[in-house]
Each structure stands twice: as C-alpha cells, then as structure tokens.
C-alpha cells in the first residue's frame, strides 16, 4: 500500500482547483454576456420580451442547477450531439449564471428613478443614448456588490459539475479520498480550497457595498 503525504493530497487538489477557477470564469463571462443581451432585449422592447425574459429567468431559477447539468449533459447526447464534459458543464453554468445576473441587473436598472428616464426622454435622447449615458452608469454602481456576491455562488456551483464527470476540485477530492482512505482529511482540504477562493470575494463585495453607501451619503 502506498502512503500519501498531506502534501501529495493538497498538491493534487490544487491542480484540480485550476479547473474550478477556469470553469467559474467561463460561467461568469459567458453568463455575463448572455445576461446583458437578455436584459438589453427586455429593456429595449419591454412588451415583446418581458414574458420571454421572465420565463427564462423563472426556468433557471426554479430548477436545481444539478438538474440543468444533467439535462445539458444527457440532453445534448439525446440529439446525437457528442460533446465533452467541458461543453456540457460550461453551457449549463453559463445559462444558469445568465439568468441570475440578468435578473440582478434588471433590478438595478429598475431602481433608477423614473424621472431619469423622463428627463432624458424629454431631452430627445435615443434609447441607446439614455442607456449608455444616463441609466447604465447609475445602475452599474448599484449592481457591482450583488454581482460580485453572486460570483461566489457560481464558484460553489461548479462543484456540481463533478456529477457529470467533470474533474474539478470536488471530483478530484472524491477520487483522492477513494485511494487514500482519508476522506475526512481530503474533504476538509477541499472545503478549505473553496473557502480560500470564495471568502476574499465575499469580503470584496462587502467592501464595495460600504464604499457605495459612503458615496451616496
């Protein structure tokens, strides 16, 4: 029987943590772009897109991420599309993130007083000009803390990608636990890795929130 040192375990976990980070970045960047497109459509043509938008957001907020991962993995196969776990996990997490970000940002835009729309409309600004110069600069400021906060949810959400065979931090922990017979040690280290990734982001979100409240005063 081979003996594993603590360092062996940690080193392998850290190697796998890279993929947690990469998958989080893909989900966040992809979700951000898709979310922004969704939000723009909704704001641009409120009447036509409101139902579609609400349906999309409701669907992804109302089903477990685990289910979405399964569906994206097995669903694509059902249609004969052979994809890697990277594509499946990236797709599911992107859609999931886009739904949440779009809804968070919609709330931020809705928080801008109606008078800002009316004043900019009266000054003959086009919809694009209103968004670009009046609404978004104000919405962006209030959107930063909740957006950064949601990033933490995305990082933890990537753990679920392990169930479709994506080897990231959690899956690697599982595999290492199976060969070392030291599940408690391994998963304690896995937890620590997540904490080290997430906690600074939480702190940063809190810092931004305080800073923004100070500006508002």
């Amino acid at each position, binding site marked *: 029987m081979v003996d594993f040192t603590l360092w062996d375990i940690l080193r392998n976990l850290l190697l796998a943590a890279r993929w947690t980070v990469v998958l989080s970045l893909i989900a966040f960047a992809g979700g951000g772009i898709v979310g922004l497109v969704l939000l723009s459509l909704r704001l641009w043509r409120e009447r036509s897109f409101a139902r579609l938008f609400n349906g999309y957001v409701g669907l992804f907020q109302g089903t477990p991420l685990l289910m979405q991962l399964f569906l994206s993995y097995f669903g694509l196969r059902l249609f004969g599309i052979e994809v890697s776990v990277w594509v499946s996990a990236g797709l599911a997490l992107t859609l999931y993130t886009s739904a949440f970000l779009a809804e968070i940002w919609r709330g931020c835009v809705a928080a801008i007083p109606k008078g800002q729309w009316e004043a900019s409309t009266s*000054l003959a600004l086009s919809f694009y000009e209103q968004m670009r110069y009046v609404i978004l600069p104000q919405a962006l400021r209030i959107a930063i803390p909740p957006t950064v906060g949601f990033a933490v949810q995305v990082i933890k959400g990537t753990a679920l990608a392990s169930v479709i065979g994506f080897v990231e931090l959690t899956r690697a922990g599982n595999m290492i636990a199976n060969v070392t017979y030291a599940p408690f040690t391994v998963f304690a280290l896995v937890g620590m890795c997540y904490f080290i990734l997430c906690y600074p982001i939480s702190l940063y979100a809190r810092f931004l929130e305080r800073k923004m409240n100070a500006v508002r005063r």
Partner: protein
Amino acid sequence: MPSVVEASAPVIVDIAGLHKSYGDVEVLKGIDLRVQKGEVVCIIGKSGSGKSTLLRCINGLEVFQDGGLTVDGRPLLHDNAAAMRDLRQRVGMIFQSFNLFPHLTVGANVMLAPTLVKKSARPDAAAQAHRLLDRVGLADKFDAMPDQLSGGQQQRVAIARALAMEPAVMLCDEITSALDPELVGEVLRVVEGLANEGMTLIMVTHEMAFARKVSSRVVFMHQGRVHEIGTPDELFGAPKTPELQQFLSSLHN
C-alpha cells in the same frame, strides 16, 4: 406684467380633441388648446384634473388615444422614433423633482443633450453651458455635482439644461412644488425672465400670484376638461363657473 401676444403670432402648440385614458379611466376628455408663439399659459386646477397629464402629452411622455397634437406644425407620432426625437428637440421640459443626472457634473448635465442629439462640438457645448448657467445665476457651479446644490439651484440647472436644446416651447410641471418656500422665488424669477424674453411657456402651477403676474392666458382644468380659459384678470378677477370660484376660494383658506 402679463405677456401680451399679438393675435397674428403663429400657433406653436395646437391640441385638438385630445383624449387620454388609463385603462378604463378617462383622464382627458377632449382637450382643445392652441398656444401662440411667445404666450405664457398657466394651467391651474385641482389635483387629478388632468393638468400634468396634458402637459406630458405635449412632448410624448404620455401616449394619448384620440385627437391630434402638433408642435411647430409637426404632428406628434408616438410610433415614429425619428419624428419624436425631432419634436422633443423643440419642446423642453422641467420637472417637479428636477431630475438632474446625479452622476454627472452640472456642466455635463447641461452639455449632454446638445453633444449627443445636436452633435455640437464639445467646446461649443461647454461655452453654451457656461452662458446658460450664468443666465440662471449659477456661473460658478459648472463643476459641482447636483447633490451639492440646494433644491432651488438644482431646478435652475434643470432650466439651463432644457434651454440648451433651444426649444420653441418650455413645459413646466409644478416646478416649485418640491422646493422649500424660501427657494421658490429664485426659480420663479428665472422663469419670469424667460417669459419676458419671449419664450413660449406652458406651466402647471400652484403659484397663483405668479400665474396672475406673468400669464397671457390661464387655463382652469376640471375633471379632464378645459373648464374655463381666459386672461388672468378674467379668471382670477371674475371667475364665471362655480367650480373655478370654489377652487379659487379654497386657495385663500
């Protein structure tokens, strides 16, 4: 002194048979009103009489269901973005709650629309903004942020911002109602200055003394209709309808 306008002055806002409903509730029940260039028209009436709604129809902030409205001979077409953009350049609006853009400096507030919509060069727009801020008595506030100003100052910036588009008509929607009493005068003086310079003004106001002083005509609205219309002396001095008499006497108590 009330603005006196010659009968031959061109009509700048022409409202005919305007109907507006919110769902089943009809708030404007057929409004006819023609405003000539250089006129100062004050709209008075109880809250809920439709006066603000009428004002907001003139620049398309509210969509109306029936009737016609032209500004400077151009019809208001809600579904035509280019026509609305053109019309809104001719109609300035000042709001009760100022609605300055809080993330921009005072100067940038005034310059934004001219640089975007009229494509003015930045130096020209800046020079114009300085001129307009000087005119409303805020020459030294160009670089200030809106939240550093008092309500009266913010409203004067809003006036400068609207003037920067060189509108043919200015709509004023209860522009002193959100101000502390001691700040009302400074805003009204600026508006009076505009009236004396010949700007066409349509104002919804509760400042009766001011309405009497500067209006060429006063419109009394009641239950979604123009109930009485005439010179300030006619309306304030000899109100004909019982509704107007009651409205005016309720103000004195």
